[in-house]
């Protein structure tokens, strides 16, 4: 090997090393950018109201306290009563929405994946297009509809409207999973004497469990985080869900920042935990439809 070739090889290695190092430096900055707000949320939630309102800020509280959290989960205090009520309202609304969305979406997604009926493409894209439209397009007429039905200030109004975005998404995600289950499996079952429904329940359903789990988490998180409908339809405090309810900590003049940060932190825990535990399914569901292997 000549000296020239050697130096060319070294340069190439240096080049690759340079890329690797710039990648590492970039990742470090990205992580700081990503984590800093979450960390600051947590640090602030450990402060007293006095400690939070200082300049320059205490980067770590001089006297960390869990007081803000105790206040939120204390069923005897007024703050705790409200917060726990919002929390259960959120759990309740998100669960019902998820169950309904998945129940309705499973047969629909299966049909879109397997059958070739006329209007299939049209209906499927009508379903997909729904995701393109902002809540605001639906807000005024749905508000009128809910008023007419007497559903304003009820959880029924939320479940019904959450289905408008939960259902199309669920159908889309589930279709991606069904598309990946070989149709030959069902055909074999049919040849062995299973009916169409048996083939579906005994063969397809068990195989699509990961898809159903992923779709359920997705629906749940979507409903849990929803704000605009809840903000518009609910004005009674005992009906509010968390994203709307935590406004009570916020006011222009005297915001209880540590309390607000503790509340947003507690509000984020369920979705983050759900996500971390099941992220494999979650990521797969999300990218399934967009990436063709």
């Amino acid at each position, binding site marked *: 090997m000549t000296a020239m070739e050697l130096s060319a090889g070294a340069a*190439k290695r240096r*080049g*690759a090393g340079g890329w690797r190092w710039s990648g*590492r430096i*970039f*990742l470090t900055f*990205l*992580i700081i950018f*990503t984590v*800093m*707000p*979450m960390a*600051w949320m947590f640090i602030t939630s450990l402060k007293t109201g006095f400690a*939070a309102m200082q*300049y320059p*800020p205490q980067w770590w509280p001089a006297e960390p306290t869990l007081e803000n959290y105790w206040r939120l989960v204390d069923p005897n205090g007024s703050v705790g009563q409200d917060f726990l009520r919002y929390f259960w309202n959120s759990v309740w609304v998100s669960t019902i929405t998820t169950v309904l969305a998945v129940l*309705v*979406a499973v*047969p*629909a997604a299966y049909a879109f994946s397997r*059958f070739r*009926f*006329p*209007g299939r493409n049209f*209906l499927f894209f*009508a*379903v*997909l*297009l*729904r995701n*393109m*439209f*902002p809540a*605001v397009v639906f807000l*005024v*007429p749905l*508000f*009128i*509809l809910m*008023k007419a039905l007497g559903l304003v200030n009820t959880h029924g109004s939320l479940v019904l409207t959450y*289905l*408008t975005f939960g259902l199309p998404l669920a*159908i889309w995600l589930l279709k991606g999973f069904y598309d990946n289950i070989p149709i030959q499996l069902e055909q074999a079952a049919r040849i062995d004497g299973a009916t169409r429904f048996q083939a579906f329940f005994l063969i397809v359903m068990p195989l699509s469990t990961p898809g159903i789990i992923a779709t359920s988490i997705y629906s749940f998180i979507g409903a849990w*985080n929803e*704000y*605009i409908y809840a903000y*518009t339809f609910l004005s009674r405090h005992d009906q509010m869900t968390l994203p709307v309810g*935590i406004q009570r900590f916020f006011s222009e003049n005297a915001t209880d*920042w540590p309390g*607000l940060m503790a509340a947003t932190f507690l*509000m*984020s825990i369920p979705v*983050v935990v759900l996500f971390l535990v099941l*992220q494999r399914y979650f*990521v797969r569901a999300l*990218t399934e*439809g*967009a*990436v*063709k292997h």
Partner: protein
Amino acid sequence: MSTAPGQAIFRDVPAPKRPSLGRQMWSHRTDYYYVAPAILVMLIVIGYPIYYTIELSFFNTPASLALSDKTFNGLDNYVTILTSPVFWKVTWQTVIWTALSTISAFLLGLAAALALHREFVGRGFLRALLLIPWVVSAVAASYVWKWLYHSDFGAIGAMLVQLGLSDQPINFVDNVNTSLYSLIVVNVWKEFSFAMIMLMAGLQTVPDTLLRAAQVDGASPWQRFWHVTFPHLQGVSMVTLLLLAVQNFNSFIIPWIMTGGGPAGSSDIWITHIYQLAFGRQRWGVASAYAVILFIVMMVLGYFYVRALTKGEDSRAAS
């Protein structure tokens, strides 16, 4: 005597192309049972509101939303919007918001996906960590960033002062020149990891053998990216960009909670503006007309979205 579907047609018509639509639908009738519940729900909660929004946009409806008192006023609501300077200001801000958020989130996501593509210890952990902003609610994100940006006690302002980059805490959000861009940072923080996982999934479809072949042939990392990796990412990039653009165009929570569109409308975008018109000022007709215009814009975007998706579908069917 039973006849198979299509048999009668064969007898009467010499060269039938395909059975009639009605007949096709009849022979597939059981298929519709599967989709019927979904279609029914969609009709009630989607078809009806769209119809109603269009209707309301041609009427003047009293603030009390007493529908029996609404009066037909033709295209007045549309004329009001298109001749108002606020419309063009808000539209321009919406374009900036959508374009800057989408491009920044995409590029940041692409860089992150490339940096995380190689196997290394802790890669899965990092990916999960970076995805957290995307999972937490926009409401939580908005409040945290509002606190970070706080004009007196905000962490970002204080940090800039301590690093010597600024003499005094900067007022990011309550400033007509910076509010929109401050919110875009929040938005990018919230959604770049969505682009990241989409592109990470896309990167897995790039054949390793091609990359290695290019390396053997002496291609630099940049050449390998540009000539091998990037062409494979085009499909998923299109879908990701479109989804991000749609999502950003439809943003509401971050601007609404952080600034309410202010100060002086400097961070107002379409959705917050429509919301303010409808539920703040009870101008139902004008707000509905806005929604209809928005609807038409989205239909155009939707056309490209569907085209990008079906292109993928066709190529999969062919492979």
